[in-house]
């Protein structure tokens, strides 16, 4: 037998001397045609922008309503006026990538446009999505899915392309959402993934005002059915655009052994997506609340700025109650890094409070600015101050890190630690035109700074809630999640609310299985702790007539399923509750419950319910075969003024839980349909 490797080598020579099918000049001519076609595609999008600007002149003249004419984008040879029209058009399908725009190898050749949804879709448009666009605050959302032209096997529907675009109440809100979306990739863990690797978001030049960026990420493993040899990864190729008050998120997801594009498809689509997104968005993108008209200008005397702090009033402690007379943090030098102090930004109103004992001190300050932009600029200034100073001093050397937080419209978390002890955490939270700065410093172990970050974040719950209360109702109430007829949201839970809806056959109370509820007396989703804090489930806190509970429980030998529903006095209160829960869940990867023999490993899962929701759970760590095969899975979802918590506990493995998570999200989606009564817009 001859050596197969020798055969292989000889095969390499087999083609030598064979005729060349085409001359090089013909190949170059073909290349020139490809080049011309690419330019034509870009030019076509530019033409669409001009058309969109011009046509509404006619529509306004005829109907007086620039949104009333469904054919307003129809080309018309009689329209030549390209003068920009004041006022923006509503986001519509023309703002989405078309088949001709979509790229894999070449524009217009590889993708077929599928469904176009007029809201956040039910399928996850991006595996890193932590909340829907509506949950981010978008008032109008559109999503278009594409299928690979060559793909007909429904069991392997990849590569997959989708774009979701959203319009936000303001440019600042869109900018905030843009940053939050980028932050998703810092702690993304797609369902079933054991690892996730992402590069940074890199800027992409776009032909309109705004920002474009893209990021490549990969994760695995790929399901054995698709990758029997274990050689593949999932490749998540993402493009992101913000222009004015709009955002576009382009996601191309595929699996394979590599993702070897010089310019990835999503990266190539960013400029075109930006041009599409800008169509009809001619209004100045910087319209913000005017001082005195929308944002609050004064801080109420009873603002709970010191809420969550120790109430110890021993001789060793001192406490300056909240007052505008207390020295501002900037003036006192509380906010400085590497010898540079933050510049006093001024304020419409300010409140400052301090608490300290021999080893710890706490400072909080709330400022109101004349606009959201000024408030955002202050947050940006503080971020820049600390980012410019990663280390300082010697013996000890202080190390400072700056990261995005998860509270409010935007937030920043600064931690600074000494070599062994000394730790400082600064939370900066902006909600509308209000910025709270919370600084806590103690002599705890530097290695334990994360627990201080968690503690300070949780202690801010009342402050954040009160900051939301300060803000007037937005043009789109956070409770208005779904489209439908206008009306007042339900303030109590109807007696016949079907909390016991089931995806399949409903469970039967038969002695082995116990079904309790739906009723106010059922146990529902049980209280839980995470990294030492009690999670802000709907059952968290006091129950009164304004916050009625409904619960449902199924318990059997296989496990426990609990559901709890609560209605809050306002959508803002419900939003604040979700913010608190999110802040608790973030950053806790493992803990040990009281009496536990092994650590609990917490994981986040995809939670694309179409609403503001989070899905997470724990299983016990198994080391050398020792560890309980048990865990609990939670989905908490807000729809308007109501929050639903789902719990599924049982004796199962981490792998089982990962497989069960999408089912629980499906269940939440099913129940969300019934929860539209808690939104202003209804269903």
């Amino acid at each position, binding site marked *: *037998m001859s050596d*197969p*490797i020798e*055969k*292989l*080598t*000889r*095969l*390499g*020579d*087999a*083609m*030598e*001397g*064979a*005729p*060349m*099918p*085409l001359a*090089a*000049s*013909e*190949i*170059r001519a*073909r*290349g*020139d045609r*490809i*080049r011309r076609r*690419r330019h034509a595609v870009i030019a076509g999008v530019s033409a669409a922008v001009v058309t969109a600007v011009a046509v509404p002149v006619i529509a306004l003249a005829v109907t007086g309503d620039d949104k009333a004419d469904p054919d307003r984008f129809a080309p018309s040879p009689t329209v030549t006026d390209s003068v920009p029209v004041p006022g923006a058009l509503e986001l519509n399908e023309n703002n989405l990538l078309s088949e001709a725009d979509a790229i894999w*190898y070449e524009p217009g050749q*590889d993708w077929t446009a599928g469904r176009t949804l007029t809201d956040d879709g039910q399928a996850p448009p991006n595996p890193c999505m932590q909340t829907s666009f509506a949950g981010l605050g978008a008032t109008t959302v559109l999503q278009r899915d594409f299928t*690979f*032209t*060559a*793909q*007909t*096997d429904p069991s392997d529907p990849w590569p997959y392309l989708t774009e979701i675009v959203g319009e936000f109440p303001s440019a600042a809100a869109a900018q905030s959402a843009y940053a939050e979306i980028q932050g998703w990739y810092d702690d993304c863990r797609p369902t079933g993934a054991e690892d996730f690797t992402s590069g940074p978001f890199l800027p992409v030049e776009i032909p309109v005002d705004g920002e474009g960026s893209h990021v490549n990420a990969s994760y695995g493993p790929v399901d054995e059915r698709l990758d029997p*040899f274990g*050689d593949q990864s999932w490749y998540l190729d993402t493009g992101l655009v913000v222009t004015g008050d709009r955002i576009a998120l382009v996601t191309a997801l595929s699996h394979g*052994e*590599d*993702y*070897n594009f*010089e*310019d990835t498809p999503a990266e190539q689509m960013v400029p075109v997506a930006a041009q599409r997104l800008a169509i009809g968005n001619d209004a100045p993108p910087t319209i913000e609340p005017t001082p005195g008209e929308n944002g609050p200008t004064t801080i109420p005397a009873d603002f709970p700025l010191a809420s969550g702090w120790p109430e110890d009033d021993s001789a060793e402690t001192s406490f300056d109650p909240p007052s505008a007379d207390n020295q501002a943090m900037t003036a006192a030098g509380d906010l400085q890094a590497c010898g540079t102090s933050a510049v006093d930004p001024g304020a419409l109103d300010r409140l400052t409070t301090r608490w300290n004992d021999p080893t710890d001190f706490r400072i909080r300050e709330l400022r109101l600015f004349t606009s959201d932009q000024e408030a955002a600029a202050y947050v940006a200034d503080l971020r820049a101050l600390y980012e410019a100073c990663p280390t300082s001093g010697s013996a000890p050397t202080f190390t400072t890190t700056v990261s995005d937080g998860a509270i409010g419209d935007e937030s920043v978390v600064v931690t600074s630690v000494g070599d062994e002890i000394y730790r400082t955490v600064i939370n900066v939270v902006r909600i509308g035109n209000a910025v709270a700065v919370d600084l806590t410093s103690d002599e705890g172990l530097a290695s334990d700074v994360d627990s201080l970050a968690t503690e300070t974040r949780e202690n801010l719950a009342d402050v954040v809630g009160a900051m939301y209360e300060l803000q007037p109702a937005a043009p789109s109430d956070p409770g208005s999640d779904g489209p439908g007829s206008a009306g007042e949201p339900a303030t109590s839970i109807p007696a016949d609310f079907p909390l016991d809806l089931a995806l399949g056959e409903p469970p039967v109370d038969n002695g082995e299985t116990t079904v309790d509820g739906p009723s106010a007396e059922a146990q529902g989703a049980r209280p839980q702790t995470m990294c030492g804090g009690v999670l802000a489930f709907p059952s968290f806190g006091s129950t009164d007539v304004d916050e009625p509970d409904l619960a449902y429980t199924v318990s059997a030998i296989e496990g426990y399923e609990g559901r709890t529903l609560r209605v809050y006095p306002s959508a803002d209160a419900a939003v604040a509750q979700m913010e608190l829960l999110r802040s608790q869940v973030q950053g806790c990867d493992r803990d040990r419950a009281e009496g536990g023999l092994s650590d609990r490993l917490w994981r986040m899962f995809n939670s694309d319910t179409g609403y503001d929701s989070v899905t997470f759970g724990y299983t016990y760590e198994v080391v050398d075969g020792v560890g309980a095969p048990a865990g609990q899975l939670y989905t908490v979802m807000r729809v308007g003024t109501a929050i639903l918590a789902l719990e599924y506990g049982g004796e199962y493995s981490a792998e089982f839980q990962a497989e069960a998570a999408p089912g629980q999200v499906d269940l939440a989606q099913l129940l969300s349909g019934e929860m539209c009564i808690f939104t202003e817009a209804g269903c």
Partner: protein
Amino acid sequence: MEAQEFDELYAASFRRITGQVYAMIGNLDEATECVQEAFARAWAHRRKLDKAEYPEAWVRTTAYRLAVSRWRRTKLAKRPVDRAVGAPTVVPGIDESHVALVAALRQLPEAQRQALVLHHIADLPIHQIAAEIGVPEGTIKARLSRGRTALAALLTDETPGGLAGGMSHV
């Protein structure tokens, strides 16, 4: 990249790349068309090609991707392949033993086949294959090892009286 430089690259590497892609996909006509199309795209993106450290690797990777994409279309959608460059290309057949070898290669997992072709036909060092495919060098070594073993078994199976006879030869 100027036209003359491109033409020289085309003349020097077209057959070599075609042979490599043929070994990867097992269809010479298809390989020829895809390499032509890849060269056309290389010319269309010649500024990028100027920056590429290995233009030949760029063309080979693009051709291979085109081939995989076309294979999906023809297999799954039962549609005719693109005829972007011109009429379907029919190239002379090659040696029968090469056909047997390519048939054996086609039975290997794609990753192993690609590693074998790039290492033993394209004569690329392992680190360069790792860079071209985007996986660690250790993975390439493992694929080569498994691929050689599997290929030897497959080629032996096709030889009458070979080890495929199994236990009777013990």
